[in-house]
Every structure is written in C-alpha cells, then in structure tokens.
C-alpha cells in the first residue's frame, strides 16, 4: 500500500463503514481499531484534495502578485542603466516562462502549473513589449499597447487552458474599449475566440471547478459585449454599471447553492463564486473614486435599484442561510456589505462615510475569515481572508501616490506572503492531524 497511491475516497468510505462492520460482527473490535489507526495514518500523510485545489489558487494568486510586481519594477524606468541591461531585465520574465511552459506541456502538469506558466508568459510578453516602448520612446496609447498584448495572449489561453489569462484578456479588453473614443461593432471579433473557448470548456466539463471559474471569468466578456452593442458614448455610465454584472453573477451563484445545497463548500464552486461576487462589490465600493462616480454619474434609476436590490438580496440570502442552517461560518461580514449597500447609499450618498463603511466591512471580512480559518482549521477560509486583505491593500496602493518601485516591491512581498502563509498553514494543519491520530 505504501508504495501505491492511496485511494482517498475508498479510505474514507472504509472508515465510515467500520462502525457498521463492527456492529454486524464482520470484524472484531481489535481489527477495526487497527484498520482505523492504519488508514487515518495513511490519510494524514496524503495531500488532501481540498488542499490540492487550494494550492492551485495559491499558485495563481502568488504568481499574479509576483508578476504584477515585476511589471511595475520595469515600469519604474531604470534610465541610469544602459539600454541593453534594461532590455534584458524586461525580457527576463518571458525568458523564465519559456522553460516553465515547455516543462508544463511536456510533463502534462496540472492546473497550478498550467496557470502559473500562462501567467508568467502573459506578463513576460507585456513587460518585454513595455520595455522596448520605454527604451526606444515609442508612442501609442494604452489601447494600442493592449491590442498587441491581447493578440499574443489568445494562444496562451488555448495552449494552457488558462482561465486566469482568459480573465486578464477579458479585463484588458474591457479597459481597452472603455479607453476608446468610439466603439466599433467589429470589436466583437476580439471577443469571439475567448468567448468561444470558454463556452467549449464549460460545455465539455460542465461540473469541473475550471468550468465554474470560466463562468466567473466570462463576466467581463458579457459586460464588454453589452458596452459594444449599446455604446451610448458615456463610458463612465458603462463603468459604473459593472456592479450590476457582478451582482447578477453573485445572485446566480447564490441561487446555484439551492440546487446543490447538500454539496459541501469545498466541492461546490457556486458559493465560492457567490462569495467572490460580494467581495468584488465590497472592494469596488471600498475605492473612494468609485463611490464618488457611482453617486454622481447619470445612471438610470432602474439600474441603481437593481444593483441595490441584488446586493441586499445576496447579503440576506447568505445571512439567512447561515442562521437557518446554523452554519455560523457562512455569516460573513462581506454578506453584511451586500445587505448594507443600498441603505448606506440611500442615507449617506456621496461622502467619506459609505466608503469607510465598505472598507471596514471588507477588512472585517478578511480578518473574520482568518480567525475562522484557525478555529475551523480551514485553508479555504484562510485563502478567502487573505485574498480580501491583499485586494484591499492593492486598492490602497493604486489609490495612493506611492512610487511605482515601492508598489512593485510591495506586490512581490504580498505574493511571497500569500505563498508562505499557505505553506506554513498547510504544515500546521498536517501536524495537528498527525497529533490527533497519535
């Protein structure tokens, strides 16, 4: 057994069956105890499937932060260095991505490797184009830069089946069309390859975690499509209807939990997406400028109403579910953010207080999840909490006028912190399980 891979599902099944086998006198007490002890030891040394899944998230987020940091270090513009050194520095992430990509494809490695390779290559392409523009002082607005980048990202999405790069692509496309003076219908062609590939992935593996993440990554595509088809010339209005898209996604995923309510959270991607939707909403409105634009822009009344109702609905849903099922771990402050959103908006309008409330709720959710992770020994809760806190930190960095170099280094530190916390927490949990078995 020790040389072969343990079938975790079968081992759990056997452990569940032991009391019944004992009761029916199929095996005696001593044999049952020996079997239980043996399999619990075996299981404690096996990498938990949930941990495996979470290592994917850790890998992706760590790589994202680290690559964003590297891109910002290039953006600092080391003009005291010779052009060749600056070019070499800009090409470094790309050069690192090539062997990693070849290794991932040759060895047919899993999602975490595929995503990390695709992210490194994607950011490598961006930093190499950026450094050439910087060294040779090439003109061109952000949309022109993004067009070249995005074309080169399409094969990455397909080769590595990368939903993270698809998400990048969708957000980059959204940023590009928002920055354009006029949106031509021909831009739909830019969406077709990624949208088509996402649909194919979701159709081929409808129940997989990858399909669930593709669903979430497709939100900016749907929103961009609406923007292209409407193109009312007022992009600000377009930007601020984004919460509606996020909230619809949130409401749909929360609804998804009613259909699969008995499936535990670790195996059910829908509540994860629901939580992320509310987290995105809270994060959007933790950013001072967004709150100001939302209050002052000419949004039609119905869209504000829909946004508020959905926000409140999603919040009520999560809180009511937690109370009725007595699952207090679901009682997240982020659900409170959704619940309080319309009230805060109606009563306080455009001033500092709503922004502070949303920031406090987002930060509170992060801290609450971290505390919960220690109490419930849940890596999912720890990652959720860290994502919220790091995203909030990222927002603060972007909103502040800190030097690019400091921001870049901070991103790298955050990436390392994320990876380190996961590894440390994983070791801590395994140690506890081993002690319990003994």
């Amino acid at each position, binding site marked *: 057994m020790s040389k072969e891979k343990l079938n975790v599902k079968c081992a759990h099944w056997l452990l569940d069956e032991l009391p019944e086998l004992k009761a029916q006198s199929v095996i005696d007490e001593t044999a049952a105890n020996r079997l239980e002890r043996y399999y619990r030891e075996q299981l404690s040394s096996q990498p938990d499937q949930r941990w495996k899944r979470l290592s994917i998230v850790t890998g992706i987020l760590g790589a994202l932060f680290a690559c964003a940091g590297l891109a910002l270090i290039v953006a600092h*513009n080391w003009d005291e260095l010779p052009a060749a050194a600056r070019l070499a520095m800009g090409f470094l992430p790309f050069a690192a991505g090539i062997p990693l990509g070849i290794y991932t*494809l040759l060895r047919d490695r899993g999602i975490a490797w595929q995503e990390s390779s695709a992210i490194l290559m994607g950011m490598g392409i961006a930093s190499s184009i950026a450094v050439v*523009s910087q060294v040779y002082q090439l003109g061109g607005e*952000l949309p022109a*830069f993004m067009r070249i980048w995005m074309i080169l990202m399409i094969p990455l999405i397909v*080769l590595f089946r990368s939903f993270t790069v698809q998400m990048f692509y969708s957000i980059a496309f959204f940023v590009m069309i928002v920055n354009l003076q006029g949106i031509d219908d021909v831009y739909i062609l830019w969406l077709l390859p990624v949208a088509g590939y996402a649909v194919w992935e979701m159709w081929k593996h409808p129940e997989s975690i990858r399909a669930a993440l593709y669903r979430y990554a497709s939100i900016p595509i749907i929103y961009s499509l609406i923007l292209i088809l409407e193109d009312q010339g007022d992009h600000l209005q377009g930007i601020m209807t984004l919460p509606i898209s996020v909230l619809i996604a949130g409401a749909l995923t929360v609804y998804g939990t009613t259909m699969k309510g008995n499936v535990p959270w670790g195996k059910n991607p829908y509540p994860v997406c629901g939580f992320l939707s509310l987290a995105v909403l809270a994060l959007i409105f933790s950013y001072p400028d967004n709150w100001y634009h939302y209050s002052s822009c000419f949004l039609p009344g119905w869209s504000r109403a829909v946004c508020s109702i959905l926000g409140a609905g999603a919040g009520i849903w999560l809180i009511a579910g937690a109370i009725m099922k007595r699952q207090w771990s679901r009682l997240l402050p982020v659900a409170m953010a959704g619940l309080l959103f319309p009230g805060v908006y109606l009563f306080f309008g455009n001033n500092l207080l709503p922004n502070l409330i949303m920031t406090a709720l987002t930060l509170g959710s992060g801290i609450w999840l971290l505390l919960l992770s220690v109490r419930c020994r849940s890596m999912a809760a720890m990652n959720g909490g860290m994502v919220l806190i790091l995203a909030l930190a990222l927002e603060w960095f972007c909103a502040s006028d800190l030097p690019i170099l400091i921001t870049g280094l901070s991103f790298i530190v955050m990436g390392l912190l994320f990876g380190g916390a996961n590894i440390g927490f994983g070791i801590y949990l395994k140690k506890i399980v081993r002690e319990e078995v003994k």
Partner: protein
Amino acid sequence: MNSYRGIKVIAFAVLSVVCLAVPISQAVKYCWIQKHGEVVKFRMEGFDPRDIFRGKYVTVRLSPRKYIPGKDNAAESEQISSQEYQTVYAVLGKDDKGFATIESLSVRRPEHGTYWKVRAIRAKDKISLIYPLDRFYMNEHLAGDAESLIWKDIQNTAAVVRLKDGTGMLDDVEINGVPLARLAREMAGKK
C-alpha cells in the same frame, strides 16, 4: 511523448518565437533608426501622466500641428481627406533657429528629402496633423521635475527626433541643447 503533447509543445515553441519576434523586431528597427536616422528638432509642450505598464512619461506635443498649403502645393493638399484622418508624408525643413517646419504634405512617399509618416485631416484652408510620437518615458522620480523644467523654458525646449525612411523615433528631449533627464537629475540633486 504522445503526438497531441508533441503538437502542443511545437505550438508553444512557435508562439514563443512569435512573442519574442514582436518586441525584438521593434527593438532592432528603432535601434537602426537611432544609429542611422537623421536628427530633426521639434518645438514641444509637455506634462507628466503615468502608464500602468510603462511607467511615468512626459507627454510630447510636437509642433507645428497645423499646415497651411501654399499655391504651389494646393493640388496635393486637396487630396487629403476632410472626413477622417489619413496617413500622409510631411516633408520637413528647418527654421532659422533649427526647429522643424513643414514644407509640404504628400499622400505619396517622397523620393527625396527628410520626411515623416503622419496622420492629417483637412479643414477648409488648414490641415491638422497628428505625429506618431507622443511620449518621452522617464524615471518616475524625475518626471515631475522634468515637467516643471519644460514649462519654465518652453520656448527653448526641443524634441529630438530621428527619422529614417518616414519612420521616426524620439531620441531625446532637450532644453537649450541640454538633455532633459540630466537637467531633471541636477534639479533633484539640489533638493
């Protein structure tokens, strides 16, 4: 290694070559212009925004941005669209202070002289121009000082452009012949 995996690796290798070729071809092209291009100085204006990927830069608004065709090249100018911007070739000369002037505009590539591919639109008797260069990237600590230096002495600020076969690259920005980065560094050192 099965054939499907082999195809994926080959596709990845092709993709890597293409991805490398895009920035490297740009680097080689502009390195060539930097070495062999003709130097032309333009009057300019500037301020310092930020690009998320490429860092801080001084926006370069090259001048002249308007051209009034004379009688001898009115026919050529008539071919320029008044509906939308189109690509034209600006044939350049120099004024008495050494700054660039526009001698004529042509929809066909000129056979002689210093010329630059720009975009133009006709509005009655004037033609408005958009130059393909609009940014001068700088170290983030120097960009703010550089902006104030430009505004202090805008009349003597020049964008040094190198031109080769209609393609241009911004070589430097100078104030009274001194590179802007050096002046900004000196100013930062005094603080």
